[in-house]
């Protein structure tokens, strides 16, 4: 029976908080399991460094992901090469796994548009800042794949618990249900929409059960258990692309988890939640859980962990070096991409802008 065939309130788990197996371990080869661990460590270390860069004034406002690595990596690693990902603004880990270089994620949060210029072959939409606004895009993208007969492709969409309150969530999932689009709607329920707790978003007992209203399956998973996340995402992808019978169908996954840090570096969570709650969730940290499982099953040892630690540090340091040494974007770039070609109006404004720069230099524009 599919892992999706269950009550939306019956949370899927594979590992308990100590990393002990309590469910069915998904069929993943050893190498991929270790890669999963490597990427989770990478995401965590990147996150720690990114917050520190912001604190040092080397980067703008940044939304941290610590605590959510299990959900991001466990789901993204289940995707096939040709699948697409439609993220919110916190999916730095999932994006990395899907081929977006860390350097670009850094550039985006350093205020460079270039951070959103996806490399060829990287199937990721630009991060959507307005909450839930990306959900209908994901439905449309999957619909397009279906209409064009590209039946081997699914589209995963990430969003948070707060997003389920927006109209776009309803409309996106409703279309998906009506048109049977090959989607996986992946809700990172991290308990807090800035200061507003999950209970304030909806009177529904779970977010997964909202699927019922759209005529699609909803499943709740322990989002800090990367193996459980992998299992449900894989099952949802199979259902979207290779159903045992009938047409492919969408799924709503609610991955229950916690953001250990602030909503963004501009936020102070101590105002609205207490340390006790944070500590309770930290006991579910997905990284030691997976590490413990890998060690217990002989897939990794001290040496392996140390090698990954060294690799992770190096990769993040290299990415920061690359992002910071990237040349400042040329200011005239802002006139280049509003349309395929500059309109006469934009051309005139560009010329006026260049004349001003010629006359006053960059000092004529830059504030402190």
């Amino acid at each position: 029976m599919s892992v999706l065939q269950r009550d939306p309130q019956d949370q899927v788990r594979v590992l308990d908080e100590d990393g002990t197996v309590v469910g069915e371990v998904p069929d993943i080869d050893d190498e991929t399991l270790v890669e999963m661990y490597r990427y989770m460590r990478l995401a965590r270390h990147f996150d720690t460094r990114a917050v520190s860069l912001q604190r040092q004034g080397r980067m703008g406002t940044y939304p941290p992901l610590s605590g959510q690595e299990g959900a991001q990596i466990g789901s993204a690693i289940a995707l096939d090469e040709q699948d697409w990902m439609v993220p919110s603004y916190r999916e730095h880990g999932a994006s990395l796994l899907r081929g977006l270089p860390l350097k670009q994620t850094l550039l985006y949060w350093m205020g460079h548009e270039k951070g959103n210029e996806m490399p060829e072959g990287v199937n990721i939409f630009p991060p959507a800042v307005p909450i839930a606004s990306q959900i209908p895009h994901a439905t449309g993208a999957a619909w397009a794949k279906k209409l064009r007969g590209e039946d081997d492709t699914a589209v995963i969409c990430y969003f948070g618990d707060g997003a389920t309150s927006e109209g776009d969530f309803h409309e996106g999932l409703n279309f998906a249900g009506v048109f049977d689009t090959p989607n996986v709607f992946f809700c990172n329920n991290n308990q807090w929409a800035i200061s507003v707790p999950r209970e304030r978003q909806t009177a529904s007992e779970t977010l997964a059960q909202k699927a019922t209203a759209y005529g699609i399956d909803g499943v709740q998973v322990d989002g800090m258990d990367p193996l459980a996340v992998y299992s449900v995402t894989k099952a949802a992808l199979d259902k979207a692309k290779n159903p045992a019978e009938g047409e492919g169908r969408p799924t709503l996954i609610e991955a229950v988890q916690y953001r250990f840090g602030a909503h963004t570096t501009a936020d102070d969570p101590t105002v609205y939640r207490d340390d006790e709650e944070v500590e309770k969730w930290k006991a579910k940290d997905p990284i030691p859980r997976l590490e413990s499982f890998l060690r217990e099953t002989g897939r990794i040892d001290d040496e392996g962990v140390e090698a990954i630690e060294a690799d992770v540090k190096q990769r993040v340091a290299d990415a920061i070096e690359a992002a910071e040494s990237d040349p400042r974007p040329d200011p005239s770039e802002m006139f280049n991409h509003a349309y395929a070609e500059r309109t006469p109006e934009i051309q005139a404004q560009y010329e006026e802008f260049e004349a001003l720069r010629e006359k006053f230099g960059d000092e004529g524009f830059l504030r402190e």
Partner: protein
Amino acid sequence: MSSQNLTIVQAVRDGLYTEMNLDDEVLVMGEDVGKNGGVFRATEGLWDEFGDDRVIDTPLAESGIVGTAVGMAAMGLKPVPEIQFSGFMYPGFDQIVSHMSRFRNRTRGRYTLPMVLRAPYGGGIRAPESHSESKEMFYAHEAGLKVVIPSTPYDTKGLLISAIRDPDPVIFMEPKLIYRAFRGEVPEEEYTVPIGEAAVRREGTDVSVFTFGAMTRPTLEAVENLEAEGIDAEVVDIRTISPLDRETIVESFKKTGRAVVVHEAPKNGGLGAEITATIQEEALLYQEAPVKRVAGYDVPYPLYALEDYYLPSVARVEEGIREAVNF
């Protein structure tokens, strides 16, 4: 009257606090306005003071926030919903333009909406994408709405109280770049600053410079710098985008015969166009030079690495004024 030295964002908070104390029908609602006190702390302490029924943390849904406020206002409450950033008003746009602006007209005055929709707007704070735009003209284009943008702590409190007491819906946009840039004297008591009246910030004879919100700062600085070049500029702070105080605009222009408009919103369809047309209609024979618009460019607002190049700078404003004066 006793007074306090407040920033603009503190004046917002003080205006809400003052009016909530005076009128039980006034309530605040929005995302993170309660325990968190708003992401900019514009509602700090109000939740402790007035409780969960008057300072309401809502689900994350702007259409829901605006739409339910419309319903509340129609029933006689005076809701002051906050949208966290003006860039997130668009899920509520349908409610704003299809209903908030038109209940009075659609019911021949039977139902009215004494509500104020607050949102911080504008660039320059190194914020992420969709957090920096200046789109006041979307709302100015909609009959039935009043659109207010203060630029000083004193005006902020006085205009906010006027907005809350106004029988019609008001879009109250707050210049977040200068939320904490400086302090000003603000009376502790209630007082109002009238909606629909511009303020002459500096009198001058050579050229009239019209601006509002955060752009009053580079404008005043540019005008001071130009004194050394012998240019005596008048600065008019528009304060209410709609209904526009055409009288003050025309009066100032008739005195100087030259005009510059400074705003961070895109040039195309910006307030500068409306001010220019007003001058053409009402003071053509006084005109000695083309009206110069120093505005945001007609391209999407760039991510913050380039935002200084997009926003009118002191040098750009100075150059615009020179152009108008030396024509």
